[in-house]
């Protein structure tokens, strides 16, 4: 019974011609091409004739050339040098077991030994000072880099 119904329904359907799909697709493609043609023919706008001249006159004397400047300026390097010297002086002052009997010359001789011993036998204060120095240098460099990038 069910098969019989299906056959009846099938007979009721009309068949399209074999090129029906390609005809529909051609029509759709032609419509799309037509829209594209019409828009590209009539949809474009033009600037005023002196647009480029006006623009280039605004850019006159300007240059897009990238002029690289050092991330750490001379002043900054001098600051860093001063800090390092300060560190050395501190090591010189506190890092060695100096007493009044030792002459200044003796202390200078011991300086290299003290710098070496700073990393092995240095006090907590020295470590903190050294970490602060590294951190401040890193902070300055990062600030300068991010400032440059934002510009």
């Amino acid at each position, binding site marked *: 019974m069910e098969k019989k119904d299906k056959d009846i329904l099938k007979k009721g359907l009309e068949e399209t011609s074999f090129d029906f799909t390609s005809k529909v697709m*051609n*029509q759709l493609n*032609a*419509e799309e*091409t*037509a*829209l*594209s*043609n*019409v*828009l*590209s*023919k*009539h*949809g*474009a*706008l*033009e*600037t*005023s004739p002196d*647009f*480029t001249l*006006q*623009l*280039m006159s*605004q*850019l*006159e004397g*300007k*240059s*897009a*050339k*990238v002029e690289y400047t050092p991330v750490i300026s001379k002043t900054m390097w001098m600051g860093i040098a001063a800090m390092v010297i300060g560190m050395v002086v501190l090591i010189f002052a506190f890092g060695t077991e100096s007493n009044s009997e030792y002459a200044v010359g003796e202390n200078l001789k011991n300086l290299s030994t003290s710098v070496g011993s700073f990393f092995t036998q240095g006090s907590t204060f020295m470590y903190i000072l050294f970490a602060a120095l590294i951190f401040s240098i890193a902070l300055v460099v990062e600030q300068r880099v991010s400032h440059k990038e934002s510009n």
Partner: protein
Amino acid sequence: MVEIDDKIYIQQVLDGKTSSFTCLVDKYKDMVFTVCYRILRQREDAEDAAQVSFIKAFNNLHAFKGGSKYSTWLYTIAYRTAISRSQIKKVDTVNEDFHIDIATDNSFPQLEALKSQEQEFYVKKAIEELPEIDGAIISLFYLDESSIQEIVEITGLSESNVKVKLHRARKQLKVNLEGLLHQETKSII
């Protein structure tokens, strides 16, 4: 080939030869202007926004790394410049009784009977009847042949949003320009 030309000009500008920027301006000025005009709807404003866009591009040329096409990067600047200007304009004119009167007659006659100049008028009018962003998207897609992905990059909209806007704009244009499109379709088939 086109992209190689752009790269050469960009390098020359970065090397300090500012005059090479003229080539880039001449090549892209109409499309930059079109994008700005679609958003701002006024010639003077659009031309001003286009100039500002080129100046921004010039000043930030060193930041262009070539990850996308130069045109995509430039149209992104133009689109965003125009959008920010249109927002300022909207705030300025929010209490004014202001509207742009494109044409007194809102009907679209049978376009196949019109001369080329008249056809141009009605095509431009049909695009101007689209919402601002849809008009810009249609211009990028059909005039510049930008891909969906490039339009996504330029507008900052999602891919599905761009596709919906494009479909909606296309549908509206087909209705408004039915006569002209019918004639064009017949000539294609």
